[in-house]
């Protein structure tokens, strides 16, 4: 017990040091201050974890929010819709990109979070979506955006099915490696299929979508458009989670053998979650293409895949709102750390380590926390 606590502490202090180091700006004199701050934080975290009052308060807040879900969602949506009125164009751009990543994270959450399948090359589906839109609307100008949007999703979904049929017969790490390969293959194809994709130069001049006389042109308008799509995606995922589909996915994640023994076709459910993930990623990719107006293979590197995965893990595996929260944290926060650009990845890594150690269920393990509270009261009453 004490040994475990010691490693816990070591991890914590090491992680915190890594986070604080960049802020010292090379001044060794600050070191004692940093140590003191880290020590204090450690004490506080332990105190908060053990103090019944604080634990109860946290559970109370989470339960209260969970009970007033509609109100909470309405408030968040209101803030999200109103945000562009008080933001600079630059901030709106950042937020829009966060919205796109939130769609991606919500999509990835279906496979990684709900079904428990680790996908490492997820950005490949995003790329397929983006290029489908780019090729259809700009390169060959075959149709307008509104036709290309669903087609992008379907193209990514098709890739998902074609990859999934052989790959989903594998388990765990092996499957992760196959998907990693898929992401790289897509990127290399895009770089080399010059005629179709423009090679390393990418595709230029993708127009912003228009709806009759209106063009979604202003950053603010595009932000709202992306927000609407995100809302739809989150709604769809949430409804799937609270249905027999979501239950079956989670059951497979929890125990594949038991799920099969209860009549669940594990392979088909895997394939369904995989292709749905790919579909939503393709939709996000299509939005990305029209947002940027220009796409090239450089936007779809392995780093992006890892970033999206971090969002899912940070927000809480299998948590619908968590994936969105994770996306916003990982896109918006680094913007405030611009001066420490060099250290960003270091901080990322440290934060991820700290999360895995202290909150393996992510930032918002709301469902679990609320249930725990219910169970304890049950036990108390019995």
């Amino acid at each position, binding site marked *: 017990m004490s040994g475990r606590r010691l490693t816990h502490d070591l991890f914590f202090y090491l992680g915190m040091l890594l986070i604080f180091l960049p802020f010292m700006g090379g001044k060794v004199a600050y070191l004692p201050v940093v140590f003191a701050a880290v020590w204090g934080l450690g004490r506080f975290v332990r105190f908060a974890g053990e103090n019944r009052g604080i634990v109860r308060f946290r559970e109370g807040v989470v339960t209260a929010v969970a009970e007033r879900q509609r109100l909470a969602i309405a408030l968040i949506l209101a803030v999200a819709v109103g945000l562009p009125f008080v933001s600079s164009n630059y901030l709106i751009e950042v937020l829009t990109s966060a919205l796109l990543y939130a769609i991606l994270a919500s999509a990835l959450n279906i496979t990684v979070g709900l079904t428990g399948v680790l996908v490492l090359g997820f950005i490949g589906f995003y790329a397929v979506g983006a290029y489908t839109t780019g090729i259809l609307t700009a390169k060959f100008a075959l149709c307008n955006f509104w036709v290309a949007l669903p087609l992008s999703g379907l193209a990514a979904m098709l890739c998902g099915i074609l990859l999934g049929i052989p790959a989903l017969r594998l388990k765990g790490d092996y499957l992760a490696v196959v998907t990693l390969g898929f992401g790289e293959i897509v990127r290399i194809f895009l770089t080399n299929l010059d005629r179709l994709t423009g090679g390393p130069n990418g595709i230029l001049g993708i127009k912003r979508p228009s709806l009759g006389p209106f063009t979604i042109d202003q950053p603010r308008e595009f932000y709202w458009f992306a927000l609407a799509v995100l809302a739809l995606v989150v709604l769809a995922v949430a409804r799937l989670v609270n249905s027999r589909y979501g239950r079956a996915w989670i059951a497979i994640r929890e125990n594949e053998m038991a799920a099969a023994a209860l009549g669940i076709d594990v392979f088909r459910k895997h394939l369904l979650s995989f292709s749905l993930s790919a579909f939503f990623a393709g939709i996000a990719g299509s939005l990305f293409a029209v947002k940027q107006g220009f796409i090239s293979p450089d936007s779809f590197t392995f780093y992006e895949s890892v970033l999206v995965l971090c969002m899912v893990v940070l927000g809480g595996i299998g948590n619908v709102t968590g994936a969105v929260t994770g996306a916003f944290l990982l896109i918006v926060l680094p913007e405030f750390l611009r001066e420490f650009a060099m250290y960003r990845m270091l901080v990322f890594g440290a934060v991820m380590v700290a999360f895995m150690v202290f909150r393996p269920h992510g930032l918002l393990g709301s469902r679990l926390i609320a*249930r725990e509270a219910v169970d304890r009261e049950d036990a108390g009453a019995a």
Partner: protein
Amino acid sequence: MSDILTTDNISVAFGGVSALSGVSVEVREGEILSIIGPNGAGKTTFFNAVTGTFPPSAGRVFLEGKEITGKKPHEVARLGLARSFQNLKPFAEMTLLENVLIGRESHAVTGMLATLLRTRAFAADEERQQQKARELLAFVGLERRQESLARNLTYGERKMLEIARALALEPRVLLLDEPVAGMNPTETGFVMELVRKIRTQGITVVMIEHDMRMVMGISDRIYVLDHGELIASGLPHEVRANHRVIEAYLGGGKHAPTH
């Protein structure tokens, strides 16, 4: 009475090691059948072979006259053969109600579009399945805990949950792998009563069990496995007196198996 589940000389070998050799069993409709035998006799392997978890390397399996040899576990389950596990496998991060609802999956009818649009048919189906799941939880005595997470259950409660989950399939035959292992006499009595009630609902029960009070108390017939082979079968008092069974359990002693 007709046979509902039969195996014809099934064998299972793991890389040259024979775990089950030429076992033929006939399960009659509506009976409670026990399979006993020392540890490592191949009892769980038999369940795995019948349900398709590890398909048999030879022999055939029939359910209600139809051959199910080599079918996938989920197909076997949907055909009406449900099982519980010896090493409990609850869906830990799901509530009890959700656990049982997984067993209802094969009876759910709503498609993806209805689910996304939350149609009236979806709501009706969901309500019907939840109603059934709640009934089953009440049947095994867990209705008060239906909103708890499965991981917060006690050992005995988990066993009950496994039974409720398997019953949710509305099976024709229920295979129970050591349903009372590790339970106290009161709990064992409850499970015995439960198994009898399951039988009165027209479900045939096949169980692996070590607890002789339970086996002798409720079994209509008993099969005895040892070293992967069937060494005896018959009514409880016949099996109790069979010298090969006594030998298998006690290595040639003169006492009947008591535990």
